[in-house]
């Protein structure tokens, strides 16, 4: 029975292989994973993918929404462990380090040598977020900073000047007290600590981790001061609330909360949500005793060390395409994310947008106070720990120092784990 089939089988195998071979020579296929959901740039990146494919006969880009930052991270971890990572993937600011540690992503600098994009035109502060040990592994794409969104109508009703938002935390507390007294609503909300935690610590002069990444320092006296201040706003002064991020937004747009710290990435959708409800004010993130300090959030694009040279070049071509001044400016203007390149920032599309919508400018004004987020390969666990800390701090009203000590202990243990594991 098998003999009868041998000849046709061989023939089809031959046919399949040769035809497949011809196809491969004509078109390079690459996968691009991203985490931008609807309202946060999904349509735009897909548009770029289609345009790019139309312009390039020899490359086919598959732009895939790989879920939120966490799902993308887990998906990429699994794909990498299975030996089949995507060509390009977007990683949230704190999550790229794991792939750098795994030596799975490419140094992007050499690719820029023959590129039309001026490599030095990327904002230095934002480029730092993609720099690990002096090597640049990522291209800043949908970067952001936290802003203070506030309800101008409520400010007015409470007898505050809507054009004079609070400058520092003391003022945030004062304003909150006045708003709470006059209108019986919350002044500020806290939601599970992520980058806002770094923002608060930074303004009090505390660091998450020391510069050489040998020790976590987020239990320093400055950090404790910052976190006690936040705790007091909720439990002593009772002018702030805490919960999940979604609940905070419900309160804010339901006019039961006057101020909230959110990403500039949500600018366009927040402006839409506030229409017909109240006038939305946007201010710089408040300063602390040590001035202003904002973490750069969002994500960068990374190229995996996978596939043929042609695939890697094609991947870079796509990244090059989306950071072209015109495209990058269009992306930033439509979303609220930052154009990370000066040519894109100065492009007329974005400049026009900033002129008609000054609230989109605030995040650029914050760039000088910006800091990259901690780059440890196990940030997922620290993030989980800070969420636990959040519950201790607010729900359980635990001792801030003790709880932070515990987070630091976990962090330092993991520093040990990751250093002790042998690296060839």
């Amino acid at each position, binding site marked *: 029975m098998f003999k009868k089939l041998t000849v046709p089988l061989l023939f089809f195998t031959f046919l399949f292989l040769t035809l497949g071979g011809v196809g491969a020579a004509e078109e390079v296929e690459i996968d691009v994973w991203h985490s931008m959901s609807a309202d946060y740039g999904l349509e735009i990146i897909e548009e770029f993918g289609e345009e790019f494919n139309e312009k390039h006969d020899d490359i086919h880009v598959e732009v895939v929404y790989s879920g939120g930052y966490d799902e993308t991270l*887990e998906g990429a*971890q699994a794909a*990498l*462990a299975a030996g089949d990572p995507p060509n390009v993937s977007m990683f949230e600011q704190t999550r790229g380090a*794991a*792939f750098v*540690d*795994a*030596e*799975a992503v490419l140094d992007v600098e050499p690719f820029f040598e023959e590129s039309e994009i001026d490599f030095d035109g990327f904002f230095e502060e934002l480029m730092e977020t993609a720099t690990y040990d002096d090597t640049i592994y990522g291209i800043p794409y949908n970067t952001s900073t936290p802003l203070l969104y506030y309800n101008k109508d409520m400010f007015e009703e409470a007898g505050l000047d809507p054009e004079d938002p609070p400058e520092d935390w003391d003022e945030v507390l004062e304003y909150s007290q006045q708003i709470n007294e006059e209108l019986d609503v919350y002044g500020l909300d806290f939601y599970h600590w992520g980058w806002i935690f770094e923002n608060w610590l930074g303004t009090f002069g505390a660091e998450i981790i020391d510069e050489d990444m040998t020790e976590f320092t987020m239990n320093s006296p400055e950090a404790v001061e910052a976190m006690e201040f936040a705790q007091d706003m909720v439990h002593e002064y009772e002018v702030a609330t805490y919960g999940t991020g979604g*609940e905070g937004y*419900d309160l804010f747009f339901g006019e039961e909360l006057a101020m909230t710290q959110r990403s500039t990435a949500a600018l366009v959708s927040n402006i839409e949500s506030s229409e017909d409800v109240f006038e939305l004010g946007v201010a710089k993130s408040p300063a602390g005793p040590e001035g202003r300090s904002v973490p750069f959030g969002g994500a960068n694009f990374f190229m995996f060390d996978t596939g043929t040279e042609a695939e890697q070049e094609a991947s870079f071509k796509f990244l090059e395409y989306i950071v072209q001044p015109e495209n990058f400016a269009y992306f930033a203007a439509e979303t609220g994310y930052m154009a990370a390149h000066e040519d894109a920032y100065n492009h007329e599309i974005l400049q026009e947008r900033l002129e008609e919508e000054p609230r989109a400018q605030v995040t650029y004004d914050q760039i000088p106070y910006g800091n990259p987020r901690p780059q440890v*390969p*196990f940030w*997922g*666990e620290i*993030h*989980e720990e800070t*969420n*636990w800390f959040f*519950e*201790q701090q607010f*729900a*359980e009203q635990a001792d801030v120092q003790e709880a932070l000590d515990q987070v630091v202990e976990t962090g330092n243990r*993991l520093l040990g*784990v*990751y250093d*002790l*594991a*042998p*690296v*060839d």
Partner: protein
Amino acid sequence: MLLKALASTFDGVKSFFLNKTRFIRRNDLLVAYLFLLPAVIILFTFRIYPALQLFWLSFRDTLLIRPTDSFIGLDNFTRMLFEDPRFWNSVGNTFIFVLLSVPLQIFFALLIALGLKRKIKGLPLLRAGYFSPVVVSMVAVSVVWQWAYHPDIGLFNYVLASLGFEPMEWLMNPYSLLSPIWFRLAPIIEALGLNPANFEWLNISTAMLSVVLLVVWKGTGYYMVIYLAGLMDIPDILYEAAEVDGASRWQKFKHITWPLLTPTTYMVIILQIINSFQVFSSIYIMTGGGPSRRTEVLVYYIYNRAFESMELGYASAIALFLFVMLLILTGIQKFTIGGRVHYDR
């Protein structure tokens, strides 16, 4: 089950060599093996191979995506047993979850099965109704229940409010009406020279109770069907005889139904305990182990270690612990409850 399968395979192999007509039987056997092959391949790829790899990984310091790792002997296990309070917290939470959910499910499953055994109107509809939660995916159900538990717009608080009760923070409250037990216990634990911080899982949270409620609602239907089958197996003659003797309803249950159901109960308990120890998706979706790790169960902690801190080797060690614990528990059940099961009728 496995032993039986092995034994029958062995019989097959034996007869293959001993039977005189083996040349005819050989073809039959080949066909049988071919039929078994897909199942064996799937089992091996998705069950046996990962299990063997887990055993291997639990002695290594493997990090999820870092390409290099090394053998570290029993380090993972010493850390787990002696240096990791979060591990013991998750063990405690798992036991609490099992001790709450297993008896409740058995109780309700038996109760509903007894009710549905009678010939009442709309029986098929009722049976299908009680069984329907079982067929829905746990993930989908968890998402729906998460909304039902929402403190502001959830169904449960709506019902509470319309009955005149205070709203509750179902999934977010780290304490519950059972907390006073813990507050009494804590000083005793301290007096015994132990650290109460290691026993905080005894403080059962509202969040834990909320998860248990969902799991009971979802799982009961399955065990109800098993009980129903068990009930159908009991001959009516016994009840008739009891009636002639003037036995009350309770006496009939106590002396006929319950004893004759013990094989069923035994099976239900074993299935349930194994299932409950592996609870994950409801916790993952609804609480993420919170608030304050009060619902962090073993499998969730394994997940957390493998994918958050990416300590795959350590996560494997904990998974191995779970495996061994389940093995021991099933063994204990076999020698305690199992000995009292009535198989003869």
